[in-house]
């Protein structure tokens, strides 16, 4: 009973402390003197912008509180010049979380300042979607309600200047929480891992240009602080210690940040300046077991060396949960122990995947567990086996690694047959192991060879090979004939997919009736979902569900075709191969439909066939796409291979074939169309190859030529003219 009372008192304590401190927070919130926030004019180069961020600053303060608590203040101040109506609309509503303090002032063109009454804010109610811009990561939405304020007195030409401050007091049992407000762009800002702690990826470029931004860190001197500037962002500056408060102070400052631009083939995290940082509480780090990628508390960690990564990755992969679940799953899936190591690796891939997706395609396999599973399975084999440790190329390079949340894993195994390494990465519901999940392909990474102890563990840099374009293919064979009175075209299409394409196509086309992961798993008693002997109700349910799913698939595929053409009727769909039985198998399906908008007339005896559109819409670069900011990132090398067999109607001849023969080959890719006429059959084959996954900015013209060539073909038309022959 006494324990219970103490427990409840402990629960109440933070609430009481908070109530007392709220007054202090409010007092300290008034606009401070900062010359950056006195600027009211916009540089000439940004006169045509919608809004300009004149100044922005964020203060992170994390200091030791009483006993074991920490106190965290996050203060954001932002001053934005609203140059047009669209910007006024954008800033016309303001949301803030309960407990946070906010002050907003409007500065009129004549310098008059209007302080808004924050008490006019109203509660938005539970479960109302809060715009990302204002959302606070740490808030428990089910319990608390945001407030929103309609910003008054706002006009074009005004400056909005606001401060928002959150205070949090907490016991750092697992991680240091960071909550924040006022980013101009929320998406991609946060990544987290429940156990590893929070890391903050902060994009400095936004949809509005920014004159100046500072970020101040004042953090308790017993915290580990990792920080990395990326994509030409400036470095962090150490300002000194505050011995009394037992904190360290740092400053980050950036000026003249241009706004972001929507572009094809871009990874934002590799294009615009950004910073990534994290704080870790020291007491959770035991001497031998390294749960975090940290340096020491005396200085900021700005890069991760090989040895640190070795320690960290080894500990992470060999954690007790991974071992426990390896044993748990191994027992259930009954791995066949092939002698050949690669065959065994394939067996693991298939069984692990079947287990993970036995209930449906919406699950996922964590790369950490995937790699650990392979490690334990191969532990006692005589084999050259490495864990591949890397950073997804969508985030950055492994040399820029600064937080454990950026890490992703796979494995490589040397083939006994040819001495080549074969790579395995976790896939999706309808992947086979040839889908490497492109994130690590072609990147610099590390090979970790785990030994019996730390000293016998080694790590070395490697280059994960690139895909070959042929690894990822979409192949479509179409047989096209003219319908009654030339009113439509009859299309019989067979589409096949391989590699990355197969995983995507599978989600769209495979239902449980065609491929059930459970069929690969042995019967294990005690699990409801693995029951082999089903009740009448279960059988009925499956029949009805399959009926519904099959109908919905048909509607989905019909809509997919309709997004490219006007169709008169979508007749049928047949999945001919799931492609799930082996890596080199293709997922294939057949479709039959009538298209009405590809055939046009020019009088009674001439028809115009818009044949180019059959390769589906191609990227049509516009004027604003021609200027490029940043390097070019293509997710993966790939091939689109279309063969169109057109049955020439009796009494007609085709003309204009030379115009559709085309060929281009450059550093970005190749596009070729070949045309053969064989009696009444016209065979057109186009092959579009994305040859590389990366090009420097300077080679954007190559990409333009390559994309334009494919676009031009998609506009191609041929003539069908009645002849007397």
């Amino acid at each position, binding site marked *: 009973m006494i324990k219970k009372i103490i427990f409840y008192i402990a629960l109440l304590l933070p609430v009481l402390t908070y109530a007392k401190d709220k007054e202090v927070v409010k007092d300290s919130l008034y606009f401070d003197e900062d010359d950056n926030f006195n600027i009211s004019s916009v540089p000439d180069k940004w006169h*045509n*912008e919608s809004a300009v961020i004149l100044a922005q600053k964020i203060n992170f303060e994390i200091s030791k509180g009483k006993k074991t608590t920490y106190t965290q203040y996050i203060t954001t101040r932002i001053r934005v010049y609203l140059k047009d109506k669209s910007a006024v609309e954008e800033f016309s509503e303001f949301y803030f979380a309960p407990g946070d303090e906010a002050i907003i002032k409007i500065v009129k063109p004549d310098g008059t300042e209007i302080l808004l009454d924050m008490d006019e804010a109203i509660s938005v109610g539970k479960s109302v979607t809060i715009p990302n811009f204002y959302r606070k990561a740490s808030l428990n939405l089910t319990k608390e309600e945001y407030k929103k304020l309609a910003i008054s007195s706002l006009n074009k030409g005004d400056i909005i200047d606001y401060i928002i401050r959150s205070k949090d007091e907490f016991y750092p049992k697992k991680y240091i929480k960071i909550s924040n407000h006022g980013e101009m762009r929320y998406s991609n800002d946060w990544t987290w891992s429940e156990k590893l702690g929070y890391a903050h990826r902060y994009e400095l470029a936004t949809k509005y240009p920014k004159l100046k931004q500072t970020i101040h860190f004042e953090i308790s001197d017993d915290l580990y602080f990792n920080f990395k500037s990326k994509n030409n962002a400036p470095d962090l500056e150490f300002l000194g210690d505050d011995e009394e408060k037992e904190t360290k102070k740092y400053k980050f400052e950036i000026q003249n940040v241009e706004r972001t631009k929507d572009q094809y083939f871009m990874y934002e995290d590799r294009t615009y300046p950004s910073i990534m940082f994290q704080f870790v509480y020291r007491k959770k780090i035991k001497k031998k077991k390294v749960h975090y990628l940290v340096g020491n508390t005396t200085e900021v960690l700005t890069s991760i060396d090989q040895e640190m990564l070795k320690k960290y990755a080894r500990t992470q992969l060999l954690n007790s*949960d991974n071992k426990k679940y390896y044993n748990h799953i191994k027992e259930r899936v009954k791995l066949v122990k092939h002698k050949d190591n690669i065959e065994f690796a394939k067996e693991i891939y298939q069984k692990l995947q079947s287990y993970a997706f036995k209930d449906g395609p919406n699950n996922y*396999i*964590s790369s950490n567990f995937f790699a650990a599973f392979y490690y334990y399975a191969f532990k006692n084999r005589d084999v050259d086996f490495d864990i591949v440790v890397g950073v997804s190329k969508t985030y950055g390079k492994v040399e820029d690694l600064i937080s454990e949340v950026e890490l992703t894993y796979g494995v490589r195994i040397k083939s006994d047959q040819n001495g080549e390494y074969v790579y395995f990465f976790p896939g999706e519901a309808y992947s086979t192991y040839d889908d490497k999940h492109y994130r690590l392909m072609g990147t610099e990474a590390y090979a970790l060879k785990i030994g019996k102890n730390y000293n016998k563990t080694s790590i070395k840099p490697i280059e994960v090979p690139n895909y070959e374009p042929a690894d990822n293919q979409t192949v479509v064979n179409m047989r096209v004939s003219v319908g009654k009175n030339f009113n439509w075209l009859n299309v019989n299409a067979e589409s096949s997919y391989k590699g990355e394409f197969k995983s995507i196509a599978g989600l769209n086309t495979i239902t449980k009736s065609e491929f059930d992961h459970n069929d690969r798993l042995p019967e294990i008693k005690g699990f409801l979902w693995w029951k082999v002997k089903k009740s009448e109700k279960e059988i009925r*349910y499956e029949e009805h569900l399959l009926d519904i799913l099959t109908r919905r698939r048909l509607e989905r595929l019909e809509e997919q075709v309709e997004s490219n053409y006007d169709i008169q009727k979508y007749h049928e769909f047949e999945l001919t191969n799931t492609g799930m039985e082996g890596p080199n198998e293709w997922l294939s399906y057949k479709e039959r439909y009538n298209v009405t908008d590809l055939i046009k007339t020019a009088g009674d005896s*001439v028809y*115009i066939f818009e044949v180019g559109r059959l390769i589906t819409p191609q990227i049509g670069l516009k004027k604003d796409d021609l200027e490029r900011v940043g390097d070019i990132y293509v997710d993966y090398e790939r091939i689109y291979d279309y063969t169109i067999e057109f049955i020439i109607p009796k009494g007609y001849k085709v003309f*204009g074939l030379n115009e559709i023969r085309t060929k281009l080959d450059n550093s970005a890719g190749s596009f070729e169309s070949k045309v053969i006429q064989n009696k009444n059959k016209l065979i057109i084959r186009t092959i579009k190859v994305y040859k590389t996954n990366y090009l420097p900015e300077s080679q954007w013209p190559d990409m333009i030529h390559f994309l334009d060539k494919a676009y031009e073909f998609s506009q191609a038309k041929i*003539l069908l003219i009645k002849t007397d022959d």
Partner: protein
Amino acid sequence: MKRFFIFLFFIQFTILQTHAQTISYKTKDSERIAKKLRLEDDYVDDLFVIYESNTTFNFELDDETGVPYAIEETEITILSLLDYTKYQGAVYTDLNTELLSIQLIDKNMKRYSLNYVSGSYQNSGIFHQDGEYNVIELPSSTFGEVMKYRFVRKHNDLKYLTSHYFQSHRYYINNGEVTLNIPEWLDAEILDKNLKNLKLKKDIDEPKKSSKSKGKKKEEALTVYKYSFKELDPAPNEVNMPGPSHVLPHIVFLFKGINKVGVQTSLLREPIDLYSWYKSLVDSVENDSLELYPIYESIVENASTKDEKLKAIFYWLQENIRYIAFEDGIAGFMPASAHSVCKKRYGDCKGMANLAKELYKMAGFDARLTWIGTKRIAYDYTLPNLAVDNHVICTIIEGDKKYFLDITEDYIAIDDYAERIQGRPVMIENGDSFLIDTIPVADSKTNMVKLVKGFTISGDKIVGKAYEEFNGESKTDVLRSYNSISSNNQEEALEKFLNNNDKNYSIKNIKKPDLNERSKPLVFEYEYTLEHAILTFNQQYFIPLDYEKNFYSFDFDKDRVTDYLFNAKYFKVISNTFFVPKGWEVVHLPVGFEAENEDYSIKVQIVQEGDQVKYVREINIFKGVIQKKNQLKWNQDLNKLREVYDDFMVIGKIN
């Protein structure tokens, strides 16, 4: 389960599981109906239907305040069409509607309370409203079995209980019943709306002794209205369909007064009662003219005539006051004070209209608040019911002329009226009484879009000049869209608008008009080049005469059940002139066609005049509506129009 695999598989451990057999059960025909529906195309994808829905309204007087209220009891029996699925239902409440209970009822009529999760209900575009949804989830289902739940709502003020709709938003109803027990003391009229063509039976049972008034001191005489219906499809949810009151089966409540010994109260007996209530709210608003006056002076600073002042105030309001909607309790009906709206620079329709009225009064105009139901609403001011209107504007009376000013419409000219209010009756403030009038209806030609092009061929391209003119609502749309785009994107957006975001259609030398000017036609002129549009073969060119091809894929689905309402009346004329190059002659021209009925006309004329080919296409959708009955005809006419679109002109070299 652990973090390695996220399973979308939840097992509910509730006490209800232990009573599964009495909670979910078969009736004599439930399995048969489930089997039948599973085979029908319309329902095969449904997981549930409503087997029975019974709603009863009882009316009572509050013992202390004497205020009448209604208790609505609804019992819904759902029938499962798929095993293991959980039914979710929602009950809506607001400040005037209280949820008294939600319960599950088992086969033996035993009741179990159901937990529900509440959330705020928000319509897009409304800043704040008081609606809440309360969601319940029933236990896992079995095919062909039914489960029943009930909820009880209290409508605290009969003014706000305006109507009752029969259909479910999601589910087919096999059998339904709506019962109104109207006590003798309540003077009420019930109006039937859109009940034809339903499998419905209506019974009115004249006064009898109430059997429902448990606990009441005295039994009351009741008039019982009973609507029994069956096989009712869910309410249609189609794009651009008319407002619900136009098409969905429902009843409208007119609660006129209370006649009871000692209590004689008029509720909303006549339209004047509705007006008086609105007026009482308006009169309680205190507008501070002194605070407003400096603003007024600055607005009309450069306006010397009355006409200039009329426009200056209207356009200033559009540009400077943002529309933000509030629909919570009385705030949904009472305008904010004029000076507060002006100071905040935002308001809802009532607040904006009130500010307009005050400013116009300062300028010496006879300005009045005016209530209106937009086109979405099927009723007029003969009904004393709050559902009659949903909007407030300001009317200026200048001699015989009235200006109906809707301040919420950005970039509209003073003489233009948005489609949504055209032809709608209005209730205009007039002291203790009110005036009824109607917003003028504009002809579709008011919204004319005119596109004039002159073009010829140059190599394998088409080159030409274009003139585009926008009027009425088509102009308002362009101005509004252009000005809502961030300024750094406006030029690019404008180009994409003019060339329909088509890579093949590049334009240059755009003569751009003032995109803030709303009183004159909006005109763009530019030069263009069109690639990949023509073919050449054997000394012949194949050239499309109409590249815009409006409505090319705009067919109506044969299953559509409602009229299609365009956002505005449509009138577009395209006049293309092709200049035949010297040394070439026309070999083939497409043939024009005409079609006309009460909803629309389509005319295409193609003629050759010397070295010019003139193509004129005119599409007029007179009232901005294509009625259901004309949709098949539209599809047939569109086929013919497509034939014209898809027929290329051919010119050949003269030998």
